[in-house]
């Protein structure tokens, strides 16, 4: 009976009901669209960064203690001070990288490993110069730990092995230099190494920092250029679950003793920004939901005030306070259910429409349209959040309705 009465009240005040539903619908639609947009941007950055750089990188140095040496040895303090310590003059490298890689590949969850020599170099083409992060790779192995091969838009990684001194660089770097495929680029390292390399490939990951800074060469060529003969200073690893990279990294670091960075640690600053961005998105869309809930609250309060006589008569023929409460809570539930469900559909529709809008984006991420990424969890969160907010909003008028004393109403006190 409670449902019968609730539905009848909703149907006989269609305009009010539709206003309530529209409020919920719009807030859920905006939630889905905005989170998809923000998530799309984040996902693109994370996926491209992770897939083009590897899930885990082992560096050629031990992790620096967060406690300075003096504090470690003199925890009670003192007048000791150490200024400008000179780094040890030793050649940094990963010892027995082949053995270590074989050992790591035995670990469950590690699917591939590749050795890398890396360092910075200045690229010159004509009068243009740009700083590049040179990565010396074994193409066959490296393409197993990253998907950078799929991002090549001109030339190919295979040409690294067929050309004497080939280089594959990001499109951003190439465009800064003004270099085209097969152009010769002069490279100079800080240690004095010089080389001339032919541009045999251009890749585009869509992640600006990668596309504007990274260049790949054959390992031997890079070792010569960077003055790191026979040195491997990084091992790149791929796991079967990139989200678990942090846990793998901790495990590997304790095993090998070298600083082992997961992609999460390497991109911690970006992830922090994304997290803040995500919180702002949730605050904005959450506020929309709260506004919609206030709409429901307002209209249900009006409905209660208009139906004080009804409440009295319902109580006179046997409805209890709980029954009256349920009548208004059910109305809130129906409004929430319809608004949220249709809102999810409209949200999905809006996501598809936005996805098709051709907008050239170039910032941290380069794309030809809005990056939309849908997660089932966002749909569930939107539905649950709007239902909870609307139900909370309906409880207040429902409790108010239940409190009316039928005798006072009949006497005309209300």
């Amino acid at each position, binding site marked *: *009976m409670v449902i019968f009465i609730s539905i009848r009240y909703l149907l006989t005040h269609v305009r009010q009901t539709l206003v309530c539903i529209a409020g919920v619908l719009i807030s859920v639609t905006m939630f889905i669209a905005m989170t998809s947009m923000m998530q799309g941007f984040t996902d693109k950055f994370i996926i491209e960064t992770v897939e083009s750089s590897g899930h885990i990188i082992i560096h050629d140095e031990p992790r620096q203690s967060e406690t300075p040496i003096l504090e470690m040895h003199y925890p009670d303090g003192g007048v000791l001070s150490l200024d400008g310590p000179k780094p040890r003059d030793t050649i940094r490298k990963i010892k027995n990288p082949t053995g270590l890689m074989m050992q790591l590949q035995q670990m469950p969850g590690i699917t591939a490993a590749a050795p890398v020599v890396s360092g910075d170099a200045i690229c010159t083409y004509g009068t243009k110069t740009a700083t590049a992060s040179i990565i010396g790779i074994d193409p066959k192995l490296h393409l197993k730990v990253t998907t950078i091969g799929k991002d090549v838009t001109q030339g190919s990684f295979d040409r690294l092995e067929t050309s004497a001194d080939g280089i594959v660089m990001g499109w951003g770097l190439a465009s800064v230099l003004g270099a085209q495929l097969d152009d010769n680029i002069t490279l100079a390292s800080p240690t004095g190494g010089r080389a001339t390399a032919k541009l045999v490939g251009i890749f585009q990951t869509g992640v600006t920092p990668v596309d504007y800074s990274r260049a790949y060469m054959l390992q031997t060529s890079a070792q010569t250029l960077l003055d790191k003969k026979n040195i491997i200073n990084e091992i790149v690893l791929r796991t079967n679950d990139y989200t678990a990279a942090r846990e793998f990294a901790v495990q590997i670091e304790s095993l090998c003793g070298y600083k082992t960075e997961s992609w999460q640690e390497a991109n911690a600053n970006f992830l922090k920004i994304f997290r803040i961005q995500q919180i702002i998105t949730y605050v904005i869309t959450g506020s929309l939901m709260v506004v919609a809930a206030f709409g429901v609250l307002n209209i249900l309060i009006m409905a209660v005030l208009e139906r004080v006589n009804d409440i009295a008569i319902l109580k006179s*023929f046997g409805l*209890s306070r709980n029954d009256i409460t349920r009548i208004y809570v059910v109305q809130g539930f129906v409004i929430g259910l319809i608004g949220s469900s249709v809102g999810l559909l409209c949200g999905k529709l809006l996501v598809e429409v936005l996805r098709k809008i051709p907008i050239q984006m170039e910032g941290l991420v380069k794309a030809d349209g809005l990056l939309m990424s849908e997660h089932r969890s966002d749909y569930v969160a939107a539905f649950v959040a709007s239902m909870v907010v609307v139900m909370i909003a309906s409880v207040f008028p429902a409790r108010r309705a239940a409190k009316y004393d039928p005798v006072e109403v*009949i006497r005309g006190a209300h």
Partner: protein
Amino acid sequence: MGHTEPLPVSRRPEGPNGAPLLQAENLHRYLGSGETQTHILKGVNLTIDRGEYVSIVGQSGSGKSTLLYLLGGLDRPSMPEEGSRVLIEGQDTSLLDETALASLRNEKVGFVFQFHYLLKEFTAQENVALPMFRAGKLSRKAAMERAAMLLDRLGLSSKCKRRANRLSGGEQQRVAVARALANEPAVLLADEPTGNLDRKNSETVAQIFQELAAGGQTIVFVTHDTHLAERAPRRITMEDGDIVADTRGQPL
């Protein structure tokens, strides 16, 4: 009214331990609080048996309606610790929680008010069926059929599907009577049932009451209408919160 079948009335057996249908014992009721508190009922004692047709008369403010609401369990007595209480078929309403009291009203009491108080978003038939839906003893279909039957007996068969707010005042009051009878209540309590009606409709309602009472339905009504009051065999007169006269005439 154009009906041939007798009006359906409750012919309930005796209550538990032969208890009277309605009993008010040392009934007090205060309204308001602080300086504005008013002592409306001042220790009323009253017993109403099954099948009685009772009118309660008195001047405005004498406590007639308050007594009626207390007898029907719509209100609770003040000073229960002093033995101020109402018993419906032997059940002390002060001892019942809100839900149990609501169920008691649904099962045993039918209310009719001066201002009709129908649910305007519902049809006449639905208004009558709602107490049956609440009771849950009949299926939805059976409740709607019984509602139609009650409306038919009250001469409203053609108005079953009409929204309550599209009925005339007299029709609305007849729908309210049909609704009060929906669950075959032990007692029909009416507060100024003709107070808002013209002479013709007042007479129709009076006839319905007369017919119901003749069939054995217990009816207690409050009125200012002396003609209506005189039709009831038992007449209670109230003054200043207490019963000053309780006269019994020949049963119908």
